[in-house]
């Protein structure tokens, strides 16, 4: 399981873990029933405080994306898939915010952005 964290990101480490796991669920790289590494193992892999991993797992459990099973650790919830659509849109909304903010800084208006999106969509299809 490929999770990467960076201390240079400006985003708290536990959030980076949560975001990446959400993304993996949304893109089907992680599927319901699949096990996540135990807290200690992931902490060692990423070289971070185990409490940070524990927190990420706790928050994911609160979101209903993972479940803790007695004796077998943490795994992706069966109910995770229906939420995937919501998570996907949330991730894309963040990307949209970045794009819109940058456009504003550059003095490019919304119409130009929409036109750009159409153009790129066509380019990518070909």
């Amino acid at each position, binding site marked *: 399981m490929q999770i990467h964290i960076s*201390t*240079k*990101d*400006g*985003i*708290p*480490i536990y959030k980076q873990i949560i975001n990446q796991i959400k993304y993996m669920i949304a893109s089907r790289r992680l599927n319901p029933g699949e096990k996540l590494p135990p*807290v*200690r193992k992931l*902490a*060692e892999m*990423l*070289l*971070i*405080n*185990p*409490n940070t991993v524990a927190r990420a797992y706790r928050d994911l459990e609160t979101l209903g994306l993972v479940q803790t099973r007695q004796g077998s650790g943490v795994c992706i919830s069966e109910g995770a898939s229906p939420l995937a659509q919501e998570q996907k849109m949330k991730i894309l909304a963040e990307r949209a915010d970045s794009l819109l*903010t940058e456009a504003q*800084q550059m003095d490019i208006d919304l119409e130009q952005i929409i036109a750009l999106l159409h153009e790129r969509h066509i380019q990518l299809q070909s």
Partner: protein
Amino acid sequence: MSNTIIEITDLCRRFGKHTALNQVNLRIQQGTVLGLVGENGAGKTTLIKHMLGLFKAQSGFVRVFGMNPIQHPKEVLSRIGFLSEDRDMPEWMTIKQYMTYTQAFYPTWDTACANSLISQFSLDTSQKIKNLSRGQRAKTGLLLALAYKPDLLLFDEPSSGLDPVVRRDILGAIVRTIAEEGRTVVLSSHLLDEVERVADTICMIHQGRVILRNPMEQIRSSFHKFTLILDAPTETRPTLPGMLTCEGGPMEWSMVCKQDISSIKQSAQGLNAQIVDLASPTLDDIFVAQVKGQGENTEPRT
């Protein structure tokens, strides 16, 4: 139920005319991983030496496990694992001999743990310490600090001068130690990336004074780094509440502020300015900002 493992109250220390520590107050609960950061000469090593009972408090108190390390050296030191960049070890001994020698002083020595560390670090215990590479020396030092399962670990620049591969090994061993219950860790390091990864509490020392002492989470949420874009260029730096550093201009200013985000946004609005690239500063940014910010505070020094 948490104990106070280290309690330092109003600690002062001078070396001749130089004040190394000035009214230092610190309380560390069991299970904490404290990141001790500061420039070279800020007082970090001096502080750690007080915890080890190597220095006597000139004024103030030092208590480790509730005891004065000067008065109860055996009881305190037998429960502390210490690793510094000095790695002062008997050069003529083999690793095995050094282990046997050390074992005699520590009744809590765990042979299984020691053997596990030997294989984790890929050490050949028949090698003489003088023939070890820097990385192997550091690992040996770490092995000897961990094998008797100390309740408190004091690391003073453990990774200094080591290549990235060895640093990762050492950090891995530290992470595994943290995962074991009840251990308390003090990590003094200027490798802020490592500190950010493992510390849950940060204590910043500058010129012998504690300039910041907070849980990591609180630090991340109280400091903000961003670019302020004014609607018109200006010669003088803009001012926002809690501002620590402000660079750039005349229209775009890079700032670090210690203030809640809504106050910052409100003030920015008041200046007809925009905030972009809002992020949590790294520990490095915060440290530099605090030190620079300190410099600009004209507080009379007592």
